C-alpha cells in the first residue's frame, strides 16, 4: 500500500542514491533472519540464570537506581509489597487535589497483592483499569475511556507492573496491552511498579535479543507502544539545576518480589 507522495519521495531518494530497491549491504543482508553468535550467547545466559545470578542483577539494579532517584525495594512476597504500598500511600500527600485516589493495573501480580483491604482501612478508593471490549460500540468505548481518564487524573499514585527491568541502567520496560494503559505510569504524581526477581535482565542487548528471538516475547513484539522508564521525570532546563517531576511522576518506587 503505497501513496503517490511516497512514490515520488522514494524515487528522489533512489535517484540520489543512484540505486534500485535493494535489501543487501556489501553482500550481507540488511536484516537478520537468525540470532547472531553474540545474541545466542546472551539468550543462553538468560536461560541459565541461577538464583545467585538474579540476586547479583538485583544488586546491580539497586546500584544503578541510586543516582537516578529510583527507589528499589526488595520484598519477600506480595503481602509485604501491599503493606509497603499502603504505608507509602498513607504518608504521601496528593499533589493535585485534597482527596486520595489510587489507580492500579489489571495485572495478575497486582491482582494477587490484594491492595484493596489495606487501602480500605485507610479509606483510599482504589480504581482498577479493565480491558475494554474491542467490539464495543464507539459511544460505550468513549465513555469507558473518559472514565479511565478521570480516574487516572484524579489519582496521586499509579501502580503498574512491568514486562522486564534492565539492571545496568535501572530501566523498566512496559509494553502496552488492553487493561494496562500507559497513563497509569505517567499521569499520577507517584508511580509504583511491582515485579518479580526473575523479570530483571541485564541490559538492552538482552532485552532486544529476547524481543527478537525468544518466543515468549517475540509473539507480542514491541507492541504498538513500548516505554522505557528510568526513574522519576526530571529537568535541568533552569540554570542546569536538577529538578524532579517536570511532567511525569515525581517519585518512582520499584518493589521487587524476591520470593524469599
Amino acid at each position, binding site marked *: 500500500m503505497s501513496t503517490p507522495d511516497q512514490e515520488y519521495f*522514494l524515487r528522489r*531518494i533512489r535517484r540520489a542514491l543512484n540505486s534500485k530497491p535493494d535489501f543487501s549491504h556489501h553482500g550481507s543482508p540488511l536484516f537478520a533472519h537468525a540470532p547472531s553468535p553474540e545474541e545466542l550467547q546472551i539468550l543462553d545466559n538468560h536461560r541459565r540464570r541461577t538464583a545467585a545470578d538474579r540476586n547479583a542483577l538485583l544488586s546491580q539494579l539497586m546500584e544503578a537506581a541510586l543516582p537516578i532517584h529510583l527507589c528499589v525495594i526488595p520484598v519477600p512476597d506480595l503481602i509485604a509489597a501491599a503493606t509497603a504500598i499502603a504505608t507509602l500511600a498513607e504518608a504521601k500527600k496528593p499533589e493535585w487535589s485534597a482527596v486520595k485516589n489510587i489507580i492500579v493495573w489489571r495485572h495478575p501480580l497486582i491482582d494477587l497483592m490484594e491492595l484493596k483491604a489495606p487501602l480500605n482501612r485507610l479509606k483510599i478508593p482504589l480504581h482498577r483499569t479493565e480491558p475494554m471490549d*474491542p467490539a464495543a460500540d464507539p459511544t460505550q468505548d468513549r465513555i469507558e475511556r473518559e472514565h479511565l481518564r478521570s480516574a487516572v487524573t484524579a489519582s496521586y499514585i499509579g501502580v503498574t507492573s512491568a514486562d522486564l527491568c534492565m539492571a545496568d541502567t535501572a530501566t523498566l520496560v512496559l509494553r502496552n496491552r488492553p487493561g494496562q494503559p500507559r497513563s497509569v505510569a505517567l499521569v499520577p504524581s507517584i508511580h509504583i511498579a511491582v515485579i518479580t526477581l526473575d523479570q530483571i535482565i541485564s541490559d538492552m542487548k538482552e532485552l532486544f535479543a529476547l524481543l527478537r528471538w525468544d518466543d515468549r516475547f517475540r509473539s507480542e513484539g514491541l507492541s504498538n507502544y513500548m516505554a*522505557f*522508564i528510568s526513574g522519576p521525570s526530571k529537568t535541568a*532546563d533552569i540554570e542546569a539545576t536538577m529538578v524532579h517531576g*517536570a511532567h511525569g511522576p515525581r517519585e518512582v518506587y520499584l518493589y521487587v518480589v524476591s520470593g524469599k
Partner: protein
Amino acid sequence: MPDISPETYVKVAKKGIANPVLQKALAGLQDRFGRGTAEAYRRLPEGPELRFKAHDIREKAIAHLDALLEILAAKIRANGGVVYFAQTAKEAVNYCITVARQNNVHRVVKGKSMVTEEIGLNPALQAAGIEPVETDLGEYIIQLAGEKPSHIIAPAVHKNRHDIADLFVKKTGIRRTTDPSELTQAARKALREKFLSADMGTSGVNIACAETGHITTVSNEGNIRMATTLPRIHIAFMGMERIVARLDEYEILLRLLCRGAAAQTMATYVSYISGPRRPGESDGPDEFHLVILDNGRSRILADPQFKEILYCIRCAACLNVCPVYGKIGGHAYGFAYSGPVGAVVTPLLTGINRAKDLCLGETLCGACMDACPVAIDLPRLLLALREKLAYGDENWQVKPASRMEGLAYKAWSYLIGHRYIYERFLKMAGVGQKLFPRSGTMIRRLPPPLAGWTQSRNFQPLAKETFIEGWRNKKAISNTP
C-alpha cells in the same frame, strides 16, 4: 514560515559574546556536558571506538534509505498509522494543519522537536488559528518569551533564573520566585492543564527502526510521553534520515545518543511507537500520523561529499564542546540548528552563499568530531563547504564568495612556488611593517585586511632574517675553505 537568518552570524555573535549571563551559562554547559560526554564514552564497555561502529551503522542505513523508509511506512500502516511523505516544509506544515482542521483541533501540545522548528510549525499553526504549546520546559520558557531556542537540547540555556522568574510573573501570573524547583512546579501545573485539554500532540523522532516498524522519542521530562499519550491525535515529524535497519543497531545508537546528548547512560523516558491505540486499549491516541520530511535532504544525499551529515542524530554533543559555540551561543547561527552541526546543515538546507559565515566562522579545531556519537567528520564537511565558496559550484548554485581572496590565493600559490621571490616578498613586507605603531617589539595596529588581528592582540613582526636564510648563510660560511 520559518525565520532563517544566518546572514547575521557576526552581529548576533558579538551580542552573545557581550552577554555575561550567556557566557556563564555556556561555560557551565560545556564544563558539564562536554566533559561528561567524553567520560561517558570512555566508560562504554566497547570504549569510544563504538562511535565508529555507529558511523558504519548510519552509513549503511543511509545507503538503503529508500528500502528502510518503505518498510517503516508499511509496518506503521499495518498497525493502523498514517504515513505522509512531505517533500517540503510547506507540505509538512499543511498536512498537519489539514489533519488538525479535519479533527476540529484547537490546541496542540508539542514535544520537543527541532524538525518542527525547521519547518516553522508554530507560526503556521498560529496563523491557522490553532494554539501550539511547547511543553519541554526549556521550549516553554522560550515560547513564553517569544524567542528562539539557542541549543538543541537545552533551548533556554541563555536565560537565568531571574529572567525566567520575571517572565513567569508576567506571563502566568505566579508569585515571584527564583527557585528552579518552584518555577518548574509552576510550569508543570500550567502545562498539565494543556496536556489534558489538547486535541493533538506532536513530537519529533529521535531514531526509527525499520525492522520493528517503530519510531522512538527520547526525553527526560516526560512531556513527550504526555503529548503522545493524552491527546486524541499524535503527529510525529521525522527527518527522513533518522532511521536504522535493525534493533541491535538501534541499541548502539540509543546508548550513544543518551551519552552524547546529556552524558547519561539512559534517558528517563524512551518510547517506541508504531501506531495508534488498538482495540481494547483504553488510552493512547485514536490516530497516529508519521510525517517523513525531505526538505532539502535528498539533495544532500545526492552529493557524496555531504551525505555524511545525514548520519547526524541531533544529539547536540558537538555544541557542548565547540569553542566557537561556547562563546557565541546558538542564536548566531540563525536557524533551528546551531553549533558545528548547524554550521554544516544550515548552509546545505538554506543556501551556502547566504550562510557563508557559518561555513567560515570556525577554527576547524576538531573537538566536535571527537564528541560526535556517530563520528561525523564535521571539519571535513566544513572544508568541503569552504571549497564551494572558494570556487563556486553550479550544482549547489554557489557563487565564489570573494574574487579578491581567490586572486590572493592564486598569487600566494605562485609565491610559495618560488623561494627566491618569496623571500624578496618577505623582505619587502619586513620593510613595510616598520610603518606600523608598536608597543615594545610587537606591532599594535595593522591595516586591513589584517586589522582584525590587531583589534585585540598585538602582532609579532617578521624576523629580520628567515630561518632558511640563516641556514643557507651558515652553510655558505662552513663551506668556504
